[in-house]
């Protein structure tokens, strides 16, 4: 440990700490400009100069990179230190009059006006080099650097041209303390709706505010470290040393008696309908995007805003996007009508905008649903019956300029209409999960034609599957809303519990069996069994059937070349005897 005094205060710090760190730990503020805790000290702005006495000599040193030494007497606000600091701030004020941190610092130090010549009143760059160092030390790209010297010095990529080394991470803009570095996005402005079209996120983040568990994860696609091997800022600032770059997906094995599948759905990708312009127009968003936008913990704090930050005056909601459509999914997604009505209500309430609903049929089944529809009608929400043909930004009249134009055939009026709006919400339907077929194979269950899981019986056993002990809940079985999902899940849980409580289940009486003496061990049956109930016993040289798995389908019996496989109660001999009996009558 090192003992020193700062402004007369006795301080003890660990060896290797700088004066700045020692001061910060003891709540003594030394102003800095070019310093950043995760970057190497640069000592260029000379704002953090302090007067240091050591072994009878005093000197003016920069606190950011001078290591604390035993017996140092540091004065952060001596006449000499303040004099130099003031002069440097005053000179920076002349260089970058528009830089807010400088204006603030000047005010603090009692500088009202700079006495030096101002070259550009709009200049913001103070040449602190944070951007350059961030690009080099954090990103590892070194895409920008200083060029020229003296007062001509400036930050630029090589030859002032867009650099191939730049990975577009915008770390430079993030580190810039004065906003001198801005960046453009594809539409020439900072788009709040990004990727999910909803605001810039960082590469390490908690997925959503209500996430359980409340733990951040690293988005390896966005993370600079996984691109360049550098950065590791999160690890540098994490006191608990909790950041692990080597973490991989794990396979966890659990033994269970019963299984409930609730693998959910996938939202229809609206990009598949190019005419709707999703992904092309920033203000055409999907239902999920809107849910995030309108969420109080979302990027806009729940305010409904357009990509440029302004509020919409007219919003169109297009129903049945990807549902009830021969080109995509024939089925009705069941939930869209009601959530679309909810959106319409929220928009009306929050943004006071006109809302247009474009529907085929309004399916407001269930308790209170129809009443909600009537309420919306009263609120003035407009309903247009007809399928939207396309959405464009090509204005034909003056009042269409700058708007998105929804083209639709109004089937009630019998004419094609053009509705100009600011924002379009696509009420995307529900689709089975991407890996639905794979899951079905793993659990030995079947899928219906639309790839949703097939229940054992649509009316009598909607939660069960053909595999005993495996149950279904929610949208993996069919599109359904939250109340239905909860109800089904409750049922599935009850069935699972009943089974677990009993501890046993009744075997199928009609199963197959293999006569060991007749079995040649050809294994034809093993590959054919849809329930993987047959195993080949290598040591004994014949196949065997697991009674608990066998469903008595008879496939093996039909296929067995030696007649070793026989169905209980339906043996070949019995069947032939029955046939004979019939002919005898």
């Amino acid at each position, binding site marked *: 440990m090192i003992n020193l005094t700062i402004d007369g205060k006795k301080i003890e710090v660990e060896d290797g700490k700088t004066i700045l760190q020692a001061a910060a730990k003891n709540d003594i503020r030394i102003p800095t400009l070019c310093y950043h805790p995760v970057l190497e000290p640069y000592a*260029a702005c000379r704002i953090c100069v302090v007067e240091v006495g050591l072994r009878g000599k005093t000197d003016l040193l920069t606190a950011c990179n001078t290591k604390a030494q035993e017996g140092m007497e540091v004065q952060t606000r001596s006449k000499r230190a303040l004099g*130099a600091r003031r002069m440097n701030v005053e*000179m920076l004020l002349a260089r970058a009059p528009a830089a807010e941190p400088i204006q603030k610092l000047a005010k603090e130090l009692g500088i009202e006006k700079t006495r030096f010549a101002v070259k550009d009143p709009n200049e913001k760059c103070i040449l602190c080099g944070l951007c350059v160092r961030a690009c080099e030390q954090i990103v590892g790209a070194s895409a920008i*650097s200083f060029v020229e*010297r003296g007062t001509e010095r400036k930050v630029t990529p090589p030859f002032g041209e867009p650099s191939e080394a730049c990975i577009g991470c915008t770390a430079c803009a993030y580190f810039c303390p004065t906003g001198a570095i801005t960046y453009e996005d594809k539409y020439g402005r900072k788009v709040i709706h990004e990727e999910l079209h909803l605001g810039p996120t960082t590469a390490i983040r908690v997925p959503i505010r209500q996430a359980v568990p409340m733990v951040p994860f690293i988005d390896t696609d966005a993370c600079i470290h996984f691109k360049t091997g550098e950065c590791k800022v999160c690890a540098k600032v994490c006191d608990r040393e909790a950041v692990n770059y080597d973490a991989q997906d794990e396979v966890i094995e659990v033994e269970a008696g019963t299984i409930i599948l609730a693998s959910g759905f996938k939202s229809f990708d609206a990009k598949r309908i190019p005419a709707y312009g999703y992904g092309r127009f920033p203000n055409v968003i999907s239902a999920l995007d809107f849910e995030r936008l309108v969420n109080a913990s979302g990027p806009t704090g729940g305010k409904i805003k357009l990509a440029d930050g302004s509020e919409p005056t007219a919003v169109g909601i297009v129903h049945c996007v990807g549902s009830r459509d021969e080109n995509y999914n024939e089925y009705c997604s069941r939930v869209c009508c009601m959530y679309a009505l909810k959106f319409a209500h929220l928009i009306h309430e929050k943004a006071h905008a006109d809302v247009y609903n474009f529907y085929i049929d309004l399916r407001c089944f269930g308790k209170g649903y129809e009443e909600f529809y009537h309420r919306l009608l009263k609120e003035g929400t407009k309903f247009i019956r007809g399928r939207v043909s396309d959405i464009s930004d090509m204005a034909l009249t003056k009042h269409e300029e700058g708007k998105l134009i929804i083209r639709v055939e109004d089937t009630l009026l019998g004419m094609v209409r053009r509705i100009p709006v600011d924002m379009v919400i696509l009420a995307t339907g529900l689709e089975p999960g991407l890996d639905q077929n794979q899951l079905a194979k793993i659990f030995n269950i079947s899928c219906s034609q639309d790839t949703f899981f097939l229940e054992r019986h649509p009316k009598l056993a909607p939660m069960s599957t053909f595999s005993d002990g495996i149950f279904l809940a929610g949208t993996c079985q069919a599109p359904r809303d939250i109340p239905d999902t909860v109800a089904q899940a409750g049922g599935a849980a009850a069935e699972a519990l009943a089974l677990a409580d009993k501890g046993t289940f009744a075997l199928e009486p009609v199963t197959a069996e293999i006569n060991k003496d007749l079995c040649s061990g050809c294994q034809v049956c093993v590959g054919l069994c849809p329930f993987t109930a047959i195993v080949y016993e290598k040591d004994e040289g014949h196949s065997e059937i697991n009674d608990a798995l066998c469903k008595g389908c008879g496939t093996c019996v039909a296929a067995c070349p030696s007649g070793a496989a026989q169905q209980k109660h339906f043996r070949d001999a019995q069947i032939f005897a029955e046939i004979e009996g019939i002919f005898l009558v």
Partner: protein
Amino acid sequence: MTEAAKEKAFRVHLMVCAGTGCVSNHSFEIKEALEKEIKKLGLDNEVLVVTTGCNGFCERGPLLVVQPGNIFYQQLTVKDVPHLVEEHLLKGRPVKKLMYTPPKEKTPIPVLSDIDFFRKQVLIALRNRGLIDPEKIDEYIARDGYVAMGKALTQMTPEKIIAEITISGLRGRGGAGFPTGLKWQMVRNAVSANGGAKYLICNGDEGDPGAFMDRSILEADPHSVIEGMLIGAKAVGATQGFVYVRNEYPLAIKRMTIALEQARAYGLLGQDILGTGFDFDIKIVRGAGAFVCGEETALIASVEGRLGEPRTRPPYPAQSGLWGQPTGINNVETWANVPSIIARGAKWYASIGTPTSKGTKVFSLVGKINNTGLVEVPMGITLREIIYDIGGGIPGGKAFKAVQTGGPSGGCIPKEQLDLPIDYESLTQAGSMMGSGGMVVMDEDTCMVDVARYFLSFTQDESCGKCTPCREGTKAMLDILTRITEGKGTEEDLSLLQDMALAVKDSALCGLGKTAPNPVLTTMRYFLNEYETHIRDKKCPAHVCRQLNVYTIDEERCLNKGKGCDLCRRNCASDAIQGAKNEAHRIDQSKCIKCGVCFDVCNFGAVKVD
């Protein structure tokens, strides 16, 4: 020259100076003319023409020294050559009219060592100047070259070498004067990162206006630098050296390249040098001409291929330098001193100089001085001796005003301090610095405000721009000084200038910024009255600051002496002069742009400046 001729003895050697100064005065043409003439007279078996490095007396170039006899010829032209060869070489009659005659005297001085310019000099770093052909390693070896290296490699331990350098009292000749022995000890003690190499660097990025010490040494005696670095390498345990030369020194680069090749061919560089198992090699790195790269940390960044800007020390390069490895970095002149110290012993070296500054220092003597050139003098010599004895005083009978030492970062020393014995401490005390050894002499016609402005415009231009005080401060100070020289200065400017100079000196990052205000501070310290005259009376006493000059025409003189020659009116760019031939002329002050052309063209002294 053929191998056979190399082995041959000649009765006369003609030492033609081929330093950059003389070369630009056509010394190579003189050399060719000499060779042609000698051949013509059939003397080519008797007389050898040798091109040497800079002789030092650049004022008088192109130079020729005839050996034996040490006869010094100066300001030669190709036309002089036939006469010179016939008289001196054929008939043995030295040619008096080509010899040097000191100002104010009539008798020429034939022998070089009798000339004041040379007599007071003590040559250690420049020990081989004018005596060897720098492109022939054998001639360097003949002058006991590589003896010290042999001694260091075979008889001395690294500790012994460092002890020897420490006792000698050698200090860094780049300007800061850090004890060389101590620096080497630091490099030796430093542990290299990841078991990597240690490096040596020779700093030849000489950038001060009017300074050419390093260039001369590299041109005249490159092997002395190589030998010094070899000794240093053994002392600190380095395996690779770099000579950083600015690209504006093509001759130095050429000669150094040749020297390195020759040394490598002899196995004096490379692996297993002299069979001792010691490895060391040197590469040349060419600088792109940024002044700040003379600062060691900026230089290291430049060698690494990075932007040449300094960083704060510590860590010192001796601890973490080139590519993070311990690096010994010394100036050209420092390295050139090392072989002599090892060969002749630390005690001998320490016997020269003052208690704190040992040995000799090379200065480039320029400005308003009779004998412009390169001089090597013992520490402790007075400014007066350098300026008046060696330099031959101020030309044109003008009065001495000040001498600026230490380059653009140095300060101006007034005539009251002429008897100041020169060493590191005394110069610092006087507000200046040793620097790399530039010495600019100024006479009464020099305006000190303008001098400060000039040097500041240089540092302002050369500031790398990394730290605020240097980047913004030098510019702001330059603005103020320019304002003063244009007659727009105020009393507040003076105090602001003073405050700024102190703040910049106090808080700049590297040596460049910390010393940049020195010309301002010293001129304000010693010549404050000139500043005040500029501000209060709007006058420049030396008439240098044109915007403050008032040009008038003595009408009587114009008419009587010049008969109204009308030359001034015809040359006036702003139609400010009224009058016609045979009439007295007058200047309309409201139109005058103070260009001074009328003053320059008037043949009758009728135009007055005030």
